[in-house]
């Protein structure tokens, strides 16, 4: 679609302003990461003595490599697990009529509204009892049910044409085969969008990992970063170096996939 000329100019102008407002704080982050402690608080964006010592510091002082591995590993497991369980539950809601269906759907969606701060202490005690404390289990399993994924996937499955399903089942395919062979391959855009949502959620999670991890067995990047934030002893140089280190993979993944994600969106589209 071609917008009219004046609208195009306005659009580019507004977007450039927004982009600048996004890049300005990012610039501060990058410049602080290469500053020595006595320049961190100076306004100039390019330090007199640029340094990489903050990055070295990052690995000297914390097990940052391990933290990164824990974050990446649990995030991958969560994305896979949350999508799989979401697909299953959404299929049940979208394609079956059964007793209490609407009530149960309301309960599932209602769970979306229950803030995590509420469930944190009881869940912590449960983790301790299960022996999952300080393991990946504690980071992954309690998060596997994802109401928002169920909600979104159900919408998509409901608008999925029944003829295709009928045809598949005419050929003798059961529910299981139909779901994974016919429906899921066509959910690309929705699954991509959910992947991004879950990925970001898991990558940036802070409170729950803080409670249930205590060593490099399972500590995640976000906890590692806060080790540099302490009343009176903030080490902003290392914090900023850490965030760059932690974000580069995420940004790389996004830049690499955004085209593909967009293309799949373009070819089929995500509909609420």
């Amino acid at each position: 679609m071609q917008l009219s000329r004046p609208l195009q100019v306005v659009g580019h102008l507004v977007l450039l302003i927004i982009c600048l407002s996004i890049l300005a704080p990012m610039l501060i982050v990058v410049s602080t990461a290469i500053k020595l402690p006595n320049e961190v608080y100076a306004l100039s964006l390019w330090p007199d003595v640029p340094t990489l010592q903050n990055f070295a510091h990052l690995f000297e002082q914390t097990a940052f490599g391990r933290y990164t591995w824990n974050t990446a590993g649990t995030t991958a497991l969560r994305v896979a697990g949350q999508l799989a369980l979401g697909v299953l539950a959404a299929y049940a809601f979208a394609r079956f009529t059964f007793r209490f269906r609407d009530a149960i759907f309301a309960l599932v969606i209602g769970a979306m509204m229950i803030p995590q701060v509420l469930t944190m202490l009881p869940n912590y005690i449960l983790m301790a009892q299960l022996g999952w404390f300080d393991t990946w289990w504690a980071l992954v399993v309690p998060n596997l049910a994802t109401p928002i994924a169920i909600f979104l996937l159900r919408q998509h499955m409901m608008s999925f044409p029944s003829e295709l399903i009928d045809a598949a089942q005419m050929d003798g395919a059961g529910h299981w085969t139909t779901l994974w062979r016919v429906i899921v391959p066509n959910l690309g855009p929705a699954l991509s969008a959910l992947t991004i949502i879950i990925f970001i959620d898991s990558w940036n999670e802070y409170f729950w990992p803080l409670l249930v991890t205590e060593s490099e067995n399972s500590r995640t990047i976000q906890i590692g970063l806060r080790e540099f934030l302490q009343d009176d002893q903030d080490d902003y140089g290392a914090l900023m170096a850490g965030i760059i280190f932690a974000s580069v993979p995420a940004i790389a993944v996004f830049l690499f996939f955004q085209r593909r994600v967009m293309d799949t969106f373009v070819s089929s589209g995500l509909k609420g």
Partner: protein
Amino acid sequence: MINLKKLCLSTSLALGLVSTLAGTMAIPANARAETEITFYHYQTGNFKALRALFDEFEAANPDIKVKDVFAQSRQITGVLQAALAADRPVDIATVIGKNISFFLNNTNAVDMVEASKGDTAWLEAYLPNFLDLGRSGDAIYAIPHAYGTPMIYYNKDIFEKAGLDPQTPPATWDAFLEMGTTIMDKTGMAGGAHLQASMGDYGTMVMVNNAGATYLNAAGTRAEFDTPDGIAALQNWQDMATSGMMPIASDKDWGTAFMAGQMGMYITSSAALRGFAAAAQDKFELGVANYPLFGDHPRRVSNSGAALMLYAPEGARREASMALLRFISQKPIANRWARESGYMPLVRDPLSDPDMKAYVDSFPLVAPVIAQMADTVPTNVWPAKGTLEAQTIIRAMLDELWAAERPAAEIVPEAVAAVNASLSPNF
């Protein structure tokens, strides 16, 4: 099976070592089997120094392992509360001073006097006023560990620019206000500020107590600073705002501005000394002075920071934990911790230790901190209920004071009454 073998091996090894170690560390034989104790802490920049203490202790006690668990200072109390509620192993816990009362009332902390089984000499090492925070009758539930005390930090370059003598920092609140105003008038830079709420209501507490008023009663259930002294101290804070010498901002803003060389004076914890010195290096000359006096009242500064509490259950873990506490309480070790961490020294007469003396000579900025040890009073502790409301009322009181639409004499009594109303469920 392997574990059992290991256990037997280590036990026999340990038995062999008993005779050699018994004289130095005096650990009862029942602590000989390999024991792991869990130490909760919030040290980040100082973690290496803390871990070095543990490593040295482990080397001297090969059958004890010290497991360190980190939680950020803002969250450590919540993490501890959860760990205790879930019955996870907690042997020694770093507890923020103002929360001690909560831990005493709601957890099963161990009395260290009782746990010492008559041999309490190790506790004598600490400055008696530092132990007061954890004292309850004859019992001691907390020992000092990561204490700070508020100091005046000042920028000597700015002093010079403003025509003030960089060797004469303000000794009183009147001088602080006057010099801050001079700095603002002469240089256009921010004059000075006093920390407020980075640790809840700590700033208000220090200012009021130092002016001879009583912030909270001993039980921590009633605010009592609506006296003439308390009101005068807070009126002074309002004057700092109205004079313009103190830009209205947050602790983080002030700290940042001070470190950037944009503010003349800033009063905050001695724990910030290291960071300030690093930020000032090659940029400006840093000065440190004692907390300003209010009128003719003697200096009374509440400690900030955290103490250690004991939770180890009776048996091997308790013995091992006590051994660690005794170890870190020895004067040379405690002093080394103070030097390497930047926290206040904790033991009596620290300068009689030659290493400490050498340190102060090489880093004279720390001398006023040591001088202020004797003026330290225990931080006020809050009860369990209504604390959040009370602290937010006090924070809002500061905002109203600085907005200066009414004098402190009107604002403070109202705030105190509101604080006491919100603390009333504790009776």
